[in-house]
């Protein structure tokens, strides 16, 4: 078998081949090529074996009672929560500050059997405001980066487990 040092088979074709995703004419042509090109055959072998290792990664078993906890948690999601944080205009810091405060107020607009703002939440507001007051420190970033920062502030809000409710089911359907 001769080693083809200058083989220029596109790598995505080799990957698709190992995944069984290469369609009819290309598939046959590549198989014929693999018979004569040791370099590509070696690549295919490495791709196949490394891909198989990903497939064999161990999973994680949900803890006992996971289903029950999820079902119990559905009692909390029937009440829609504001998507104000998502509607924040992406440009002006001043508007943002108002928006964040309003968003906090919205989150606080919940039945009286739930707690109002905790100390931790208050601290978070302070952190948010501190960041926003220092937004001009970020001004030399490009607009896209700024928008990303703002969106990510929203995300920081949303990833608190107890605030998961502010996610809205926009992927419905």
């Amino acid at each position, binding site marked *: 078998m001769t080693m083809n040092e200058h083989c220029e088979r596109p790598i995505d074709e080799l990957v698709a081949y190992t995944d069984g995703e290469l369609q009819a004419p290309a598939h046959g042509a590549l198989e014929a090529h693999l018979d004569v090109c040791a370099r590509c055959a070696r690549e295919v072998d490495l791709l196949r074996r490394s891909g198989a290792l990903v497939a064999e990664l161990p999973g994680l078993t949900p803890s006992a009672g*996971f289903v029950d906890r999820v079902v119990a948690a559905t009692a909390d999601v029937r009440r829609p929560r504001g998507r104000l944080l998502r509607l924040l205009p992406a440009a002006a810091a001043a508007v943002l500050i108002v928006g964040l405060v309003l968003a906090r107020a919205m989150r606080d607009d919940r039945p009286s059997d739930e707690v109002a703002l905790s100390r931790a939440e208050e601290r978070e507001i302070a952190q948010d405001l501190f960041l926003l007051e220092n937004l001009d420190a970020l001004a030399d970033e490009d607009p896209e980066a700024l928008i990303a920062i703002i969106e990510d502030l929203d*995300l920081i809000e949303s990833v608190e487990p107890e605030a998961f409710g502010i996610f809205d089911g926009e992927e*419905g359907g």
Partner: protein
Amino acid sequence: MPDADPDADLMLRFQGGDETAYAELVRRFQGRIVSLAYRYLGSSADAEDLAQEVFLRIYRARETYEPRARFSTWVHRITVNVSLNLIRGRKVRRHLNAAMPRSDGGDGGAVDFEDAGVVAPGDKVEKDELAQVLREILDGLPERQRIAILLNKYQGLSYEETAEAMEMSLSATKSLLTRARVKIKEQLEPYLTTGRAPERRDSSTRDS
């Protein structure tokens, strides 16, 4: 659609008011979604919280759900969205923490955003050396590449299904998958060609 989709049937039963159908869906998907969340995040710490959020979104979609795609594809799409939000939120939080150290010290109420790649104390899942190496390689991939490769190779979705789950074009998905596969292959190559795990920084194994 000619293919039967019993999961979609369950969702439609849930839509019709059968809450037991919802619980059955959670039961059917819990293992898959918790495992994927674990792999997307690179740690087991928040995997169940993430999976719970996915299932709550399914619950909230009760009124609006339409069986347009396979049910599993739709669930994957939700999982990808929730995961990307969480991963990016963590990244920003790390940047913010680096930029603005807290003066008030520890805060029991704050969410703990552990560094991706750092194994949580309770994380005893990974015993196998190679699995650990592979996990580090996956953690080093950009998140979209990681998610794509896990959907395709770990979850066994076709390119087409992976593209649907990621709401990307087929060609963009192929490109993501190819880049991920090449990186994984390159980093695993020493193991694959010698049969040993890739060399890690351990002075005791050095011969001098």
